């Protein structure tokens, strides 16, 4: 399989070509046939990723292909080199695999949309950027494509830009991410200033030479980027709003791939984080807060996509817990299984929306099980996997994270994660019951829900199979095939031995917690032995806190957006118009005046021109003779 090293470029190139073709020709010529370009291209990427994966899985040697040197400036060399180690190989499969299924699904979902070709230009462009992000071999290329996936995300959230809410959500995602990216950018600069290089291998080699404070600063700045991109507290507010984009976009970008870029980046830069215990602790705490806060919010939402979105935020929090507690492989394992069940849940919600003419509110659904059996069963598998029900994928990876936090000496974080697991199970089954069980609350006169066509069903089935069995690559816990695969990447990091007793105990406890969540949801929405309204009433302020998303948006509005707007208005009226514009206009008119003056020198007469040359020569020669020669000394 070594031959693939010379063909790695195919992996990002295929979607790039597809994006370019659909951009250039889509509007005039390709139009409704755009998927004929995009779907096979991503398929090619996937097929090319397989041998790359097998090569690194078998030989444990990273592959790399040097494409060209982007910036050759003395000691500052930025090579564009595709680099595939085990970590990248896993990401490649996730991105191209889920990417392919989502492309396939979009054929049916986006059918008839006036922007069809535009959609199939943006989506492969995203796949290209994401692939380059994971294939990068230095921080600058990583940063460039980090921004590029952000751009694609912006374009796709605002895909229906004529809708005000979509345009606003796109802007919000962009601006909130800017906060994180600023920190990330400063972090990258700090690496360059202190270490003089941006190439991964050299940076990681030299981390030991830095002072503790510098390493912590770099690690925290990099993590700021991850907080934005991977929607951690306090910057997670953009992700739920991002659901304004088409549902396949939510599945691919805002669940399976782009939002995990932050997790990937921290795992990639683990030598930097390992060198700073402080930064690790911050990562773990932020992760725990995110997992818990987002899970409680999800319980109180009625918009099916938002439930799944908060669930994504919460699961990203779990991954951050794993990173912060040094359970690197568990983080990537959860990233891997999460890609299956979360993409499945989004595509399933999309299928429901498709059947109900874009209805999102679960209060106007119910009883859909009869009409959409395939959607129901696949969604159920996804929900159970997300809730961590044995033996589905989510159980193995989530349990490992909780155990990892416990054995690493963070019992509080492990307990918070367990508490969040209860809410996870609760909101997941609440969504299942409200949507598919109970009375039919939709308008039966006009709506006739049904399972979607094959292009949409096939991805659902494949992802459901994945959500069911993907966890077995990591069985037995800590010793699975997946762990052996990734071990070389995280070689040299501290590893905590886990006793069989601990593993079993936590397995039992987290199963009980998940079943408790399931029981609570069933009691409220199936048996109706408990009234959700009464519970909400009883909890009072706590319920309102969760329902209002812990007031994050309101706080930002009150303390950041409004003061910023007020100061912007002040700067615009007073400083900009009064001082800067006046100065700029003044300089401009001065230059124009000079220009008009000098222009007169161009008389159009040859004699004058010759005079200019002659005078110029005489002045130059004269100056040199006076200043520089022996003649006058």
């Amino acid at each position, binding site marked *: 399989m070594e031959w693939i090293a010379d063909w790695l470029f195919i992996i990002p190139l295929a979607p790039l070509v597809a994006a370019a073709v659909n951009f250039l020709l889509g509007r005039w010529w390709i139009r409704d046939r755009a998927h004929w370009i995009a779907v096979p291209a991503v398929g090619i990427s996937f097929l090319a990723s397989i041998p790359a994966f097998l090569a690194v899985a078998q030989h444990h040697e990273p592959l790399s292909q040097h494409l*060209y*040197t*982007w*910036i*050759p*400036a*003395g000691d500052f060399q930025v090579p564009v080199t595709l680099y595939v180690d085990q970590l990248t190989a896993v990401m490649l499969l996730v991105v191209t695999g889920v990417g392919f299924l989502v492309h396939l699904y979009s054929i049916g979902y986006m059918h008839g949309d006036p922007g069809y070709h535009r959609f199939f230009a943006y989506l492969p462009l995203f796949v290209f950027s994401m692939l380059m992000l994971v294939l990068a071999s230095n921080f600058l290329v990583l940063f460039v494509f980090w921004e590029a996936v952000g751009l694609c995300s912006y374009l796709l959230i605002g895909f229906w830009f004529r809708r005000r809410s979509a345009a606003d959500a796109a802007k919000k995602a962009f601006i909130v991410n800017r906060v994180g990216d600023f920190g990330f950018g400063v972090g990258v600069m700090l690496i360059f200033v202190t270490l003089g290089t941006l190439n991964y291998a050299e940076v990681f080699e030299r981390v030991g030479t830095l002072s503790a404070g510098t390493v912590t600063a770099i690690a925290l700045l990099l993590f700021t980027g991850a907080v934005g991109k991977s929607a951690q507290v306090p910057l997670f507010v953009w992700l739920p709003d991002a659901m304004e984009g088409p549902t396949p976009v939510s599945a691919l970008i805002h669940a399976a791939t782009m939002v995990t870029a932050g997790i990937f980046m921290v795992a990639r830069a683990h030598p930097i984080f390992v060198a700073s215990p402080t930064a690790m602790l911050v990562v773990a705490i932020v992760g725990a807060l995110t997992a818990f806060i987002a899970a409680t919010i999800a319980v109180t939402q009625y918009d099916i996509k938002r439930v799944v979105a908060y669930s994504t935020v919460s699961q990203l929090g779990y991954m951050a817990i794993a990173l912060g507690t040094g359970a690197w492989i568990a983080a990537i394992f959860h990233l891997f299984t999460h890609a299956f069940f979360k993409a499945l849940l989004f595509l399933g919600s999309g299928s429901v929306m498709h059947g109900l003419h874009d209805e999102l509110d679960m209060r106007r659904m119910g009883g859909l099980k009869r009409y959409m059996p395939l959607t129901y069963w696949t969604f159920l598998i996804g929900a159970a996997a997300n809730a961590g029900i044995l033996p589905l994928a989510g159980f193995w990876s989530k349990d490992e994270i909780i155990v990892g936090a416990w054995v690493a000496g963070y019992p509080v974080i492990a307990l918070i994660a367990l508490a969040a697991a209860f809410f996870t199970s609760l909101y997941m089954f609440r969504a299942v019951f409200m949507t598919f069980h109970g009375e039919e609350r939709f308008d039966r006169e006009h709506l006739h829900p049904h399972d979607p066509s094959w292009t949409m069903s096939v991805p659902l089935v494949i992802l459901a199979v994945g959500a069911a069995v993907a966890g077995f690559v990591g069985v037995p816990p800590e010793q699975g095939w997946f762990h052996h695969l990734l071990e070389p990447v995280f070689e040299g990091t501290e590893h905590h031995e886990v006793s069989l007793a601990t593993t079993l105990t936590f397995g039992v406890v987290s199963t009980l917690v998940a079943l408790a969540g399931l029981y609570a949801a069933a009691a409220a929405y199936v048996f109706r032995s408990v009234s959700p309204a009464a519970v909400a009433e009883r909890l009072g302020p706590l319920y309102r806190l969760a329902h209002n998303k812990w007031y994050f948006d309101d706080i930002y509005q009150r303390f950041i957006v409004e003061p910023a707007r007020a100061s912007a208005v002040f700067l615009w009226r007073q400083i900009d118009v009064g001082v800067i514009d006046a100065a700029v206009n003044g300089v*401009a008119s001065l*230059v*124009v005046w*000079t*220009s*008009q003056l*000098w*222009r007169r020198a*161009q008389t*159009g007469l*040859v004699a*004058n*021109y*010759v005079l*200019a*040359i002659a*005078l*110029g*020569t005489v002045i*130059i*020669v004269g100056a*040199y*003779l006076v200043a*520089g*020669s*022996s*003649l006058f*000394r």
Partner: protein
Amino acid sequence: MPVQLVAPDWSLLVPPLVVLGTILVLLAADLVLPRERQAGLTVVALLGLAVSLVSLLAIDWTAGASTFGGMYRADSFSLFVSLVALVAGILSILVSAGYVESGIEPGGMALAEYLSLLLFSVLGTMLVGAAGDLLMIFLGIEMSSLAVYALTAFARRRLTSIEGALKYFLLGAFATAIFLYGIAWVYGLTGSIMLDDIAGALRDIVQGDAPVEASLLLALLLLAVGLGFKVAAVPFHMWTPDAYQGAPTPVSAYMSVVPKVAGFAAMARVLVQGLSPLSEQWLLLIAILAFITMVYGNVVAIAQRDVKRMLGYSSIGHTGYMLAGLAAFTSLQPGDRSVGSMLFYLFAYAFMNIGAFGVVAWLQERGQGVDLEDFQGLAARSPLAAIAMTIFMLSLMGMPPLIGFYAKYYVILALIEAGLLWLAVAIVIMSAVSAFFYLRVVAVMYFNEPAGAWQPARTPLLGAGLAVMALGNLALGLFSGPVLDLAQRWALAFA
């Protein structure tokens, strides 16, 4: 001295010989074919240049071989100069295609003569790049210039064309005389016209910190002034706006690039290869010329309404940037970026400036004039042409990630390494000033309503040329590394 007759190594001369052969084919065809059946000759000329371009690959440029007793050198410097000249030639012909046969110029233009003159000029430029002695440089420059004088006057029924050509020719003859006078002085002082021998002799003459002979300074300055004219450095630039404005537009496109390549190639050969022992004397002069040139060109360009004239002044500004690259020269060691950054700039400049003139020609073929007003509402009439022009303008301005940005970036880098921080700062400020007149074109295209009559026309070759250049500005910007590598090998040629 006994003269040894050695058979010249013709294999080294294949690229220029291919161009020469193409010229002969064109001239012969002109005798045989009637005027109305000559349209295919454009393709012949393009093919000739393309074959010559490919034949560059066949020669081992790293060996630094020479023939004709050292007069003709096949080294890494001549490779790059040939590359730029040929690429610029191809792009110029794509821009001229259609224009020459169309009725834009009163009385029409003779295609075969036009093409063969253009190829003569390319050939002359290639010879300057490959020159090993002052005589070859002189001959190459004159071959390149004389052809361009004639091309400038090619719209022979239009007075401005003749006026521009006449001014160009008269002043050119004056500058040539100064240059020749300089050659005579150098020969008198060093006893040789071979560049390497001159450098050797000067190394013996110039020793330590002792003041340099006045006669040597005079020789140096005369050469510098003569070449300053060829590259249109202020105050020897006066011919430029008149000639650019008067010449048929494709000729303006061509003459803004290739004769400049010849001039800068000659400057590098003469000053860096031949007169490097005097570098302390000429570096300051070049730096000051660079400064005045970039300031003057960019500031005066603001006042222009005629886009061709604006591009003329802007090209003076770019001459300033290229001179700045030369002024960053420190030593003939391989790490020195000065000449390489200048060569890269010339390469980049071909893609930006020929493109910009190309869009002007494109408009002219659609019944428009060459004033700023004629660009009004172009975005509404032809979005693609407007995008292409926007790319050219932004690239000329130096906007990343276009090639124009990287060209300036490498010059600035060379300047900083050479310690000429003030000149680097001047480039940045002048780029900001240039935004004024470049962006004005963009604004007019996008924010104004179309006005005046519009005659649709089919110009496939010109369209293809513009597409190649627009994409080239983008792609070569992103992939500037390999081209820069090639340009930076210049030092191997002069060592």
